[in-house]
């Protein structure tokens, strides 16, 4: 009897993995088709958009750029200057010094001639103590506001920024990101275009700036990073932004807008209570909460996405730092899904409840667990002698090919749409990474995901520390390269 049950269970698990494998294939094919359609439409629409009007038009909405800074002393002045020089008519830049232990605040005070003002700060959203609000005496920096507050994490810092923001649209960014000059005009467009539904948030694609040349806050020469992990992230970002998010946008199912570059309607953010500071996945959690609010109020809405590379960031190339980042992402995902489990498979929440939430639960949150159990299942089959080598190899080859197909498709997208990586050697490097990723990098990603689950269970939290090398200007790069050549 027990013997029968055991073998029945083994058959059942086998069937589950078979169905799962085919679901993955079908879903990725659907994603590829949807993203292709969305990208085609986006590019067609872009041909008829004149962005110059937005810069000066009184009808265009104002934008409050919120950038939390924690120990960013090395680059803060350069980054803020870059933000202040964006091409847009109506915007303000709010830098929130989140209790930095370095000289971030001093550098800001000196560089922008800031003076403490008698700002009547009101905790519309409750935050850690705000020690002071600073404005510049120099009219050139009239758009800049600096908040100095006790450390409370990124979400808390953003909430402090939301409390004093004045404009209709909030642009929540990482202070170390490089924004293209026309980033605001392009990101604001979806808010202005839609008539039948309210656009509540717009996400933007993020490019990888490691190894690129930066001149006056703009990426002038694109190169793929030098390390394998950096190159892997180029492919991963293409997959996530050009494919995944475009596909979700097509069906209005986008659940995540990157915390490094996201635009939100301020009134709605205030209505839902701002960022939730107790999760490390505050970006995803806010989008889900806003969507949930709109669904509950039965107001037609949309979450848009702009695939143009308008924001560039430095990604971690160190295994430990990258591992910590992935661990945090996993914990953030689990926390958000746990917090909003009410919407899962609930038709009241439309696409959010019936498609987006289950997808994230199975293919993002549970993916590492399912994969590791798959491995254990294979070992059990080996032990009991019910292992079919040909079947195993065929499935393995199939999934490997799927990975190759999806990754190549995302690179093809990049090449067709933007063609930033013009150098053939860059393309070759990316193709090589596509080939080795499932075997060399994916197991690491799997382990980081598992660690995220474990840390979530034992209640281990925190952000970890990002080690930045800083962006290089073309000149700096030349000097560094010359020094490297000499040392060789």
């Amino acid at each position, binding site marked *: 009897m027990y013997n029968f049950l055991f073998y029945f269970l083994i058959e059942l698990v086998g069937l589950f993995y*078979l169905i799962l494998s*085919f679901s993955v*294939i079908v879903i990725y094919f659907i994603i590829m088709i949807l993203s292709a359609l969305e990208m085609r439409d986006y590019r*067609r*629409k872009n*041909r*008829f958009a*004149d962005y110059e*009007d*937005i810069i000066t*038009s*009184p*009808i*265009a*909405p104002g934008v409050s750029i919120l950038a939390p800074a924690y120990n960013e002393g090395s680059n803060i002045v350069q980054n803020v200057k870059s933000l202040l020089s964006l091409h847009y008519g109506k915007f303000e830049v709010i830098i929130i010094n989140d209790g930095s232990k370095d000289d971030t605040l001093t550098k800001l005070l000196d560089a922008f001639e800031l*003076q403490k*003002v*008698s*700002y*009547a700060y*009101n905790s*519309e959203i409750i935050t850690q103590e705000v020690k002071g609000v600073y*404005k*510049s*005496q120099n009219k050139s920096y*009239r758009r800049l506001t600096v908040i100095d507050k006790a450390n409370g994490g990124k979400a808390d810092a953003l909430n402090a920024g939301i409390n004093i923001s*004045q404009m209709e649209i909030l642009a929540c960014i990482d202070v170390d990101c490089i924004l293209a000059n026309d980033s605001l005009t392009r990101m604001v*467009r979806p*808010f*202005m*275009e*839609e*008539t*039948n539904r309210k656009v509540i948030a717009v996400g933007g694609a993020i490019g990888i700036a490691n190894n690129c040349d930066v001149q006056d806050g703009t990426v002038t020469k694109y190169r793929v990073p030098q390390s394998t992990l950096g190159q892997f992230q180029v492919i991963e970002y293409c997959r996530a932004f050009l494919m995944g998010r475009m596909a979700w946008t097509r069906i209005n199912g986008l659940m995540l807008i990157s915390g490094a570059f996201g635009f939100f309607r301020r009134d709605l953010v205030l209505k839902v209570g701002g960022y939730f500071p107790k999760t490390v996945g505050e970006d995803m959690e806010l989008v889900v909460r806003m969507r949930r609010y709109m669904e509950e109020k039965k107001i037609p809405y949309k979450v848009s996405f702009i695939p143009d590379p308008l924001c560039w960031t430095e990604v971690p190339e160190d295994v430990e730092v990258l591992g910590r980042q992935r661990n945090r992402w996993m914990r953030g995902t689990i926390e958000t899904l746990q917090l909003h489990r009410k919407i899962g498979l609930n038709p009241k929440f439309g696409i959010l409840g019936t498609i987006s939430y289950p997808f994230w639960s199975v293919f993002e949150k549970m993916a590492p667990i399912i994969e590791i159990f798959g491995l254990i299942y294979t070992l059990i089959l080996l032990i009991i002698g019910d292992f079919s080598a*040909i*079947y195993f190899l*065929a*499935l393995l*080859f*199939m999934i490997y*090919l*799927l990975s*190759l*197909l999806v990754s*190549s*498709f995302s690179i*093809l997208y990049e*090449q*067709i749409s933007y063609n930033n990586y013009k150098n053939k050697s860059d393309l070759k490097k990316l193709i090589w990474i596509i080939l080795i990723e499932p075997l060399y990098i994916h197991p690491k990603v799997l382990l980081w995901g598992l660690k995220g689950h474990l840390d979530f269970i034992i209640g281990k939290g925190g952000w970890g520390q990002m080690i930045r090398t800083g962006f290089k200007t073309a000149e700096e790069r030349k000097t560094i390269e010359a020094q490297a050549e000499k040392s060789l």
Partner: protein
Amino acid sequence: MKRKLLLFIFFLATLSLSFGQEGLLPFRDSAALIQELKLQEEIPSFSYKFFIPKVSKNSKIPGDSTFLWVETDTAFISKAFKNGTLIDSLYEPLKGDSASILFFVYEEKTNINGLRSYLETMYATGDFVLAEDKEQPENDILLVASSNNYQPLDAYKNRLLGDFKLLAVTLIILFFIFSAASMIIFMLIFKTQRNQREENIKNYEQEIIGPLTNLLFEKDLEEISQMSNEEISDIFPKSLFKKRLFKQVLIERIIGLNKKMKGEFKDKLKTLYKRLGLVELTKANLKDSRWDKISAGLVQVNEMDLGELINEVKSFTNSKNFYVRSLAGATLLNLSEKVDLSFLKDQDYPLSDWQQMNYLRIIKFVGSSKFLNIPILLKSKNQSVREFAIKLVRMLGRVDLIAELHMINEASTDDEKIELINTYDALGAHMEVEFINNCMLSTNPDLKKIAVKAAGNLGNSYSEVILMDILVQTIDFRLRRACLTSLSKLNTETFEKFVSTQPLPENQALKAQIQDPLLSNV
């Protein structure tokens, strides 16, 4: 515990052995067993040999290809035989030599008991079947069938086709390989085509720029209009002019120059556009089913002032496609002799901010030279159009239309009221203070806030009373800040008095903020 378990298993094993002592084969004695052997053609791992003892040391036996005798010190031993049915026939010629039979199991010599035990084991496992049973299979066919594993036609079946899961996986792999190959081929073709197209565009631009510049600078407008068809067709190489891409590049080039140039040059370009027959391409675009082609056609009509296509453009003003109707509207605004804005009034779809922004730019541009019938928009059934009309009054600074706005004050929705107040505030319409005061009492927080803000510039003594009432009643921080700011603008004395009589820390903080010169814009 482990030890006890092992002992128990050992006990069970010995128990089963002891109960398994009883013979299974129906042979009464060794003769019966030999008789059975003589009926078996082959028994697995069983063989037998003949043995002839030597009479003397020098005894010889003639060589025999059947027995292949091997000589030892004491005897002659034959080769091993497996077929039991041959025992008698083989033994017959050896009878005279007092030969005997030796039994072997797994090539090991055994006696009759050993052989019996071996056969019993084989019988129990089904590997040995009695000759008697073999001879009557038709009587026990079910028994025979059940003793064999059922494997229907397995030998003739392709494994791949038999295993549906493996077949599915294989098909998917093939599909993936096909898809990947197609994608790579597509990528290569696409890249090649794009490179070729870019190269062609570059070449065409080179071909276009020279003749176009010569025409613009060497000929005046009249000369261009009077050029014969032959002269026109000689401007560009005929072989190139037949190509669609060349014409597209030419259109883009002419439109690009038209945007940058002014005065007579613009007219020359427009005349040239028509003389080169590019209008036909524009017409074709407008008739296309793809929205992006229609949009491209509308852009061409708009940029090149193709007034003759105005009727075609009008048909798109209520198009389902946002871009088509936006561009059609913009083109109509640009080209109509009399900008009566009636097409906007009759819009079924709500006007987006994006459309309003584009229309505003054009209206600002043409407003000075053409008549704009803005009041007609205030009568539109479409709320977004009415709101746009109010914005137009504000953004164009049309103080003369304040009376028109006044007429819709009461009938308007809250969103329209917000626009009206913003407009009165921007135009300094002090006569609308009563309306603003009424709006300050509204239950709509957005309308209330806007009215409070406007009261700071346009309010009267009654506004001060309302502001103080709101300050006493509300806890909304932003509204309180707006009230205090307006109060300080309206009457500094009242403001100071209010703050001193209501010495809440929040009021003091807001007062400090309002009076901080660095925060004047906050």
